[in-house]
């Protein structure tokens, strides 16, 4: 089906515009998914459709491996070699906008009305980026395991509380059937940490930085609530409820599926695999509520226009073209991510109302929390990675949090408040 549509488009464009004398403007575009065949085929599909749909612009794609993407973009920005369009991981957007890599994105608000909040990137009141999907985390579990141990299945309205969750972990641990009751994916010491774990901190009432001013982390990251989070976090590893920072990469990938872990804190991009294995027994549960509401991270990859683009209107046109529901649905079906709009969700296999992953769409709408929207996030993120790893490894909680606050504050000071002073 898709192919015929595309072919028709191509033939149409060839027929209609082949004789067009007007020179087409080339727009270069960077994407982080090198090595991912499925993403590539969809992106190329969108680009071909776009190129065929109008005669002013042709978009040309260059892909980068994800692990190296940010470094490549930074290097290009330093040497003034940025493309017209690029995609970025949501929380990096403010830094790139502040540093001057990006220019505001000219897409009418009306087009974005139905979008999940996590798919829209705004900085200082201006739109800079928009995503075709969001990701969401859930507690992967098996109905049979929960029932066997008399554990209540939580709902969005009534999630597990902290005490309940601790009790569940203790109970599962006591069965002796599992290597660990819970897996958190601690071996992946990268953006996974703030994405997956800082929402716990926020649910405890702490935060990475004081979001009322964005000028200090004092009180937010080392206040009583944050210390409570730190103590709880440390207890998970001291009680051997979850594998620590030295977890083997193999365990994280297969442990839950092999039954070594009873629960796993995991992303929806792994949901399809788990459903294939456990079928109806598979559950995707909301995050526990640690006192200030259940929370999960928001914002995934989004598209924006760089400051070096000489044709921002064309670049915006392409992005506007790409955020059509049908493409959102294609991405979702292919890689399991949450489509950014409810109308697109209805078109998908998994997220349509009643679909097997529909709960993720609701999760994302109800609990998704953005990571701090500040250019300083680039510094906050590695700082939090170290905090979460060190506390898990047994470091003194208060000391570790104080050190992190000091270094975040020093960084904010060094950067003259990242534009928040005035």
């Amino acid at each position: 089906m898709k192919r015929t549509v595309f072919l028709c488009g191509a033939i149409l464009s060839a027929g209609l515009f082949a004789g067009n004398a007007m020179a087409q403007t080339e727009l270069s575009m960077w994407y982080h998914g090198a090595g991912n065949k499925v993403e590539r085929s969809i992106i190329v599909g969108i680009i071909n459709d776009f190129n065929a749909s109008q005669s002013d612009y042709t978009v040309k794609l260059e892909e980068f491996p994800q692990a190296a993407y940010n470094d490549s973009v930074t290097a290009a920005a330093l040497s003034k070699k940025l493309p017209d369009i690029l995609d970025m991981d949501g929380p990096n957007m403010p830094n790139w906008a502040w540093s001057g890599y990006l220019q505001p994105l000219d897409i009418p608000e009306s087009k974005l009305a139905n979008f999940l909040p996590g798919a829209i990137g705004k900085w200082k009141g201006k739109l800079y980026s928009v995503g075709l999907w969001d990701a969401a985390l859930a507690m992967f579990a098996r109905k049979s395991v929960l029932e066997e141990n008399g554990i209540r299945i939580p709902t969005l309205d009534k999630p597990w509380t902290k005490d309940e969750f601790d009790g569940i972990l203790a109970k599962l641990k006591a069965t002796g059937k599992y290597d660990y009751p819970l897996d958190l994916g601690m071996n992946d010491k990268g953006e996974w940490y703030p994405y997956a774990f800082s929402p716990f901190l926020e649910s405890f009432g702490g935060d990475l930085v004081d979001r009322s001013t964005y000028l200090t982390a004092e009180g937010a990251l080392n206040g009583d609530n944050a210390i409570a989070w730190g103590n709880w976090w440390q207890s998970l590893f001291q009680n051997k409820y979850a594998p620590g920072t030295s977890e083997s990469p193999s365990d994280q990938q297969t442990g839950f599926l092999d039954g070594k872990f009873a629960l796993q804190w995991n992303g929806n991009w792994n949901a399809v695999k788990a459903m294939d294995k456990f079928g109806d027994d598979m559950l995707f549960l909301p995050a526990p509520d640690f006192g200030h509401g259940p929370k999960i991270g928001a914002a995934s990859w989004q598209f924006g226009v760089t400051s070096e683009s000489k044709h921002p209107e064309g670049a915006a046109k392409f992005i506007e073209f790409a955020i059509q529901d049908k493409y959102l649905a294609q991405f979702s079906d292919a890689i399991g991510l949450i489509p950014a709009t409810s109308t697109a969700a209805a078109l998908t296999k998994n997220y349509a109302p009643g679909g097997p992953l529909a709960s993720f769409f609701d999760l994302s709408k109800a609990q998704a929390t953005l990571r701090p929207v500040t250019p300083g996030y680039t510094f906050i993120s590695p700082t939090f990675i170290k905090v979460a790893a060190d506390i898990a490894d047994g470091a003194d909680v208060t000391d570790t949090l104080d050190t992190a606050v000091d270094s975040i504050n020093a960084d904010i000071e060094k950067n003259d408040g990242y534009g928040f002073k005035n």
Partner: protein
Amino acid sequence: MSKRTRTTSLERHDLTGWLMAGPMIFLIFMFLVLPFVLGFVFSFTNQRLVSPNPTQFVGMSNFEQLLGAGILVRQPETDANGVLKRDANGDLEYQSIRSYTRNNPDYPQYEGMKEFAGFDWGDAKISFVVRDLVFVKALLNTLAFVIVVAPVQGGLALLLALLINQKLKGMNLFRTIYFMPVVMSIVVVALLWRFIYAGDHGLLNSILGFLSLGAFKPVDWLGNAHTALWSILGMSVWQGVGFHMVIWLSGLQTIPVSLYEAAEIEGATNWQKFRFVTWPGLRNTAVLVLIVITMQAFALFAQVDVMTKGGPLDSTQSIVFQAVQRGYVKQDIASGSAISVILFVLVLSISLVQRYLTRERT
């Protein structure tokens, strides 16, 4: 045989000398010295990787941030009558270090410092506090790494070279096998060894358990602050030893067989032959091996980046890892440059001492 004619050294070859060395000198100045000088300049500014804020000259501030240190003396607390306060166990009470180093206007010199080490002196507690605890740890870890890895790797490489230098069949095969890890990149090797060192289902633990018939208790090699650095060191030695074996091997060939024959006639033991014939003949090779290992060890980065990211509890932080963390990840290129300047000065002074010591002997 190698009698040297002294007259030639009086001849001058300014033009030819420059012409022959010129291309290489130009390239090194262009692509090593110049960027290093630029980085040196960065280290005295507040330069960011990318930032809309103007770059300013900040003097030595980056170095003070990295190397700032002080000594904090805490006297036991007394009550209103000047009597020493004691807690429930009868121990003296002290104000916490945190109360001095955080938001205490009376002690601005300690602001933000952390305790690195401490000891008791009478009733007083004396603490060595540093401004950047992570960097100080990185510095000490790297030094420890260098001090251990240089003799261990050099020594093992020599043993392997002696082993492979026997006149037996199939030595080509063994030499190739011993060289295999060198051929694989350190990043690749570090990836593989994460599986091998894993604590819960790791290969090394399984093998040790199997060999000891289950008596061996599994160790979380990379997850334990006491074993992580040494595990990385073990892997680094494993990866690099083959290369230094080859250097030793070529050194071994320069020792005339006649010397061994003479030693044999005098009835020397194997150890005596090594001590009085082999070792003296290897002095130049030893200097080369030592220098190469030391340089590589100071640049410790990829293993840490792939395997531990400096953890657990900073036990595997290294100087270059910190330079990259700050310069790239945290975008503070000025601080990253300052670290590389410190490293440069450190290694330069060590190699000057090394050169002085080796010069004295010859």
